C-alpha cells in the first residue's frame, strides 16, 4: 500500500518538477533561438542548397520534356528513332519560344564542347519545321545530331540528378560504354588543384608550427611584463586587414623589393629571385596570417603546464633535452593538435592570398570555386568542387580524430 503511494507520489513529483522547470527551459530556449535561427538561415541552409546544386540537373528535363520521355524507351546502342527526333523538334519549338535554347546549349556544352552554337542553330531551324521526317532534317542540319555520343549525352543529362559535376571535379567522366574514365590528359585539372591545396595547407601548417611553438614557449615562460608586449606583437597582424597584410608581402618580396635587393647586395644571388607570384610567396604570406591561429592554442595549453613537471623530470635525472622532449612536449600535444587543425582547415579555404601573391600554378581550390561561380556561372561545377573539398576535409578530420583524438584538444 505504502509502495503504491510512494510511486504515485514520485510520478506527480516528476510532473511537478517538469512544470516547475518548464518556464526556465523555455527561457533558455528563447535565448539560444536567435543564434540557432541565424546559423540555420545563413550557414546550414546555404550549404545544403549548394550541396544539392552539385547534383541538381534540371535544364534538359525541364526544357526537353518530350525528348526526355521519348528517350526512356531508347536502348542507347544505335541512333534513336524518328519518334525521338520528332519530340526533339517539338521541344525545341517550345524552347525557342521560351528562349531556353541558350540554356540548353550551355548545359550540353559542358559535356560536348562546341555544342552551344549548334543548339541555337537547331532551335532556329526547328521553329520552321512543320512536318517530318524530322530525323533526316536534323541529320542534314548538322552531323552532330547523327552522332550516337550526342544522344547518349542528352539521355544522361535528361535525368534530374547527375554525377557529372562531381566526376568532373575529380577529373573523371562517364565513358560511352557506361563506365567511369579519366578525362583527356589536357583537360585534367582538379585533382592537381586538390593535391596542391592539401600540399600548401600542410606546408603552411608545418611552417606555423615550427615558428609558433618556440614563440609560444617564450610567451608562456616570460614574466607577464615582457610577454604582454610580445603577445601584442604576435596579435598585431590579427588586427590588420588581410588584404593589407597580403599586399605588404607583395611590396616586400617583389622583384625590385627590399628582400631581393638585400640578396643581390649580399651576393647570394645574381638575379632577383621569384619570391612573389610563386609558391614561396604564397606559403610565406599564408604562414604570416595563420601564425596566431596555431600559436594561441599552444600558448594557452603551455600556460597551464606547471614548471614543476620539468623540475621533477630534472630532479629525477633527465637532462634538459629529455625533460623537454619526454615530459614537456607531450603535454603540449592538445594545443598543437588544436592549433594545427585550425590552421589546416582554414588554409584549405584560402582564396584571396594565393590569388594576390601566387602564380597561376599556385591557385587553390577556392579560386576555381569562385571562377565557376562568378565568371563561368556554372554553379553545378562550383558546388561540386565545394562538396568534394568538404568531403575531403571531413575525411581528414576523421583520420585526425582517430590519430590525435578531438576530445583531447584544447582550443584555449
Amino acid at each position, binding site marked *: 500500500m505504502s509502495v503504491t503511494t510512494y510511486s504515485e507520489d514520485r510520478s506527480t513529483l516528476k510532473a511537478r518538477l517538469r512544470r516547475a522547470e518548464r518556464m526556465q527551459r523555455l527561457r533558455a530556449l528563447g535565448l539560444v533561438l536567435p543564434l540557432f535561427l541565424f546559423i540555420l538561415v545563413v550557414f546550414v541552409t546555404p550549404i545544403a542548397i549548394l550541396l544539392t546544386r552539385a547534383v541538381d540537373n534540371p535544364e534538359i528535363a525541364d526544357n526537353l520534356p518530350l525528348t526526355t520521355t521519348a528517350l526512356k524507351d531508347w536502348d542507347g546502342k544505335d541512333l534513336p528513332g524518328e519518334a525521338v527526333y520528332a519530340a526533339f523538334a517539338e521541344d525545341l519549338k517550345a524552347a525557342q519560344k521560351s528562349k531556353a535554347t541558350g540554356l540548353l546549349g550551355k548545359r550540353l556544352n559542358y559535356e560536348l564542347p562546341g555544342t552551344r552554337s549548334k543548339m541555337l542553330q537547331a532551335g532556329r531551324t526547328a521553329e520552321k519545321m512543320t512536318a517530318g521526317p524530322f530525323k533526316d532534317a536534323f541529320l542534314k542540319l548538322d552531323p552532330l545530331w547523327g552522332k550516337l555520343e550526342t544522344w547518349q549525352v542528352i539521355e544522361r543529362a535528361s535525368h534530374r540528378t547527375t554525377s557529372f559535376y562531381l566526376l568532373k571535379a575529380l577529373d573523371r567522366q562517364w565513358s560511352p560504354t557506361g563506365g567511369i574514365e579519366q578525362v583527356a590528359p589536357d583537360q585534367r585539372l582538379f585533382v592537381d588543384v586538390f593535391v596542391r591545396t592539401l600540399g600548401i595547407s600542410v606546408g603552411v601548417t608545418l611552417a606555423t608550427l615550427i615558428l609558433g611553438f618556440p614563440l609560444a614557449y617564450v610567451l608562456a615562460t616570460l614574466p607577464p611584463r615582457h610577454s604582454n608586449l610580445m603577445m601584442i606583437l604576435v596579435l598585431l597582424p590579427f588586427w590588420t586587414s588581410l588584404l593589407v597584410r597580403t599586399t605588404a608581402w607583395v611590396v616586400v618580396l617583389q622583384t625590385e623589393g627590399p628582400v631581393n635587393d638585400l640578396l643581390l647586395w649580399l651576393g647570394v644571388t645574381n638575379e632577383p629571385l621569384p619570391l612573389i607570384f610563386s609558391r614561396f610567396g604564397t606559403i610565406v604570406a599564408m604562414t604570416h596570417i595563420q601564425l596566431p591561429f596555431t600559436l594561441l592554442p599552444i600558448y594557452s595549453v603551455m600556460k597551464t603546464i*606547471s614548471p*614543476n*613537471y620539468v*623540475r*621533477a*623530470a*630534472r*630532479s*629525477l*635525472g*633527465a*637532462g*634538459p633535452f*629529455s*625533460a623537454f622532449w*619526454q*615530459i614537456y612536449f*607531450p*603535454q603540449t*600535444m592538445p594545443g598543437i593538435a588544436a592549433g594545427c587543425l585550425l590552421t589546416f582547415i582554414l588554409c584549405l579555404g584560402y582564396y584571396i592570398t594565393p590569388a594576390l601573391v601566387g602564380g597561376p600554378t599556385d591557385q587553390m581550390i577556392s579560386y576555381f570555386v569562385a571562377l565557376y561561380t562568378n565568371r563561368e556561372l556554372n554553379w553545378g561545377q562550383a558546388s561540386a568542387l565545394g562538396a568534394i573539398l568538404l568531403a575531403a576535409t571531413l575525411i581528414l578530420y576523421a583520420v585526425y580524430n582517430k590519430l590525435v583524438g578531438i576530445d583531447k584538444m584544447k582550443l584555449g
Partner: protein
Amino acid sequence: MGTTNDPFVAFTDVQKTYDGEILVVKNLNLSIERGEFLTLLGPSGSGKTTTLMMLAGFEVPTHGRITMDGVEINNTAPHKRNIGMVFQNYALFPHMTVEENLAFPLMVRKVAKDEVAKKVARALDMVQMPQMAKRRPGQLSGGQQQRVALARALVFDPKLVLMDEPLGALDKQLREHMQIEIKHIHERLGVTVVYVTHDQSEALTMSDRVAVFNDGIIQQLAKPSALYEQPENSFVAQFIGENNRLNGKVASVNGKACGVEIQNFGMVSAIPISVQNVGSATTLSLRPERVRINPEAGHYANQFDAEVQELIYLGDHTRCRVSVLGNSNFIIKVANAEGVPSLSPGQKVRVGWKPEDCRALDAY
C-alpha cells in the same frame, strides 16, 4: 672524500637574493647528517623553500658554498645531483601511467629493462599500491598520487630525498596517516630526508631535527622536544606550540635564575635565556600546560591572583583563559582528570608555575 664524521650536506655562508635588493636567505650555515630526517619549518617567505631549491639545483646561491659528500655542488645541474624530490602538487607526469612515472628516473639512467620492472614493482609495494600500476595520475586520489610521487622519488635509490610540503594538499586525517608512513619508510630505507613544511605539528611528528626559519635566518635548529621545551627566542616559542607571553623588564640576574618585573603587577622568577643585563626588556614564555590553578600555597615560586575570563571545553582538556599580571589572554590547559576544580567565568583564582618553566627570552 669525506669521512663518516663529516656532514653529508653542508651549507656554508649561503646567501640568496632574487632581485639584488632583498636577501631571501641570509648567511645560512647548516649541516645535514647522513640518514637524518631534517625539517625546514617556517612561515611562508621565510626562505625555507629557497633553501630546498638551492639544494635541488633549481636555484643558484648568490654567495657561499653547498657541499654534498665533501664536493661542492653549487653549479652541478639538477639531473646530475642524484637527489629525489617530492613536489607540493606531486608533479606526476599526467601523460604517463603510474608505472611509466616510476620507470622514468630509471629509463633516463639507462637501467636494464628487467631491472626497471623489478625496481618499479618494489617501489609500488613499498607504498602499497601494486594494483594501480596501469592507472594514470588523473585517475588517482590525492593520497594515492602522493604515494606514487614518494615512490618515484625513491625508486632510483637516491641518497638524499627532498620533500616540498608534500602533504599540503591532503585532508587532516590522511595527512596524519601519511606522516607516519613517510616516517616509517625513512626509518626502513635509512635515506636522508630534507622536508619543508609550515605545519609545526608535522615537523614535530616526523623529524629528527627541525630548523625553524624566519626572515631568511635559522632561528633555532634542534630536536623537536628541545624546540618545544627549550625555545631559544621568542619567535620559536611563539611559532612552535601554544605560548603565553608576559612582557617585562629584567630586575635581577643571578646565574641560572632571574627576576623579571612586570610593570604595576609584580615580580616573576624565571630562567634567563637571552637577556642581556638588568633593566633590559624581555618577554617571558610559558607553556599553557605548565600552569596550575589554585596550587598549594608556597608550592610554586610564582603565584599570582587571576580571574577566569572564558572556558572552552575540548574533551580531554579545558582551555581556560584568565587575566593575570595585566595579560587577559593568558591560556591555561586544565586536564580533564580527577581532582580538577570546577571553574566558571568571573571566578577569582590563584595561578602558579615553576621558574624553570618560565623562560626569559628576547623582547618580542
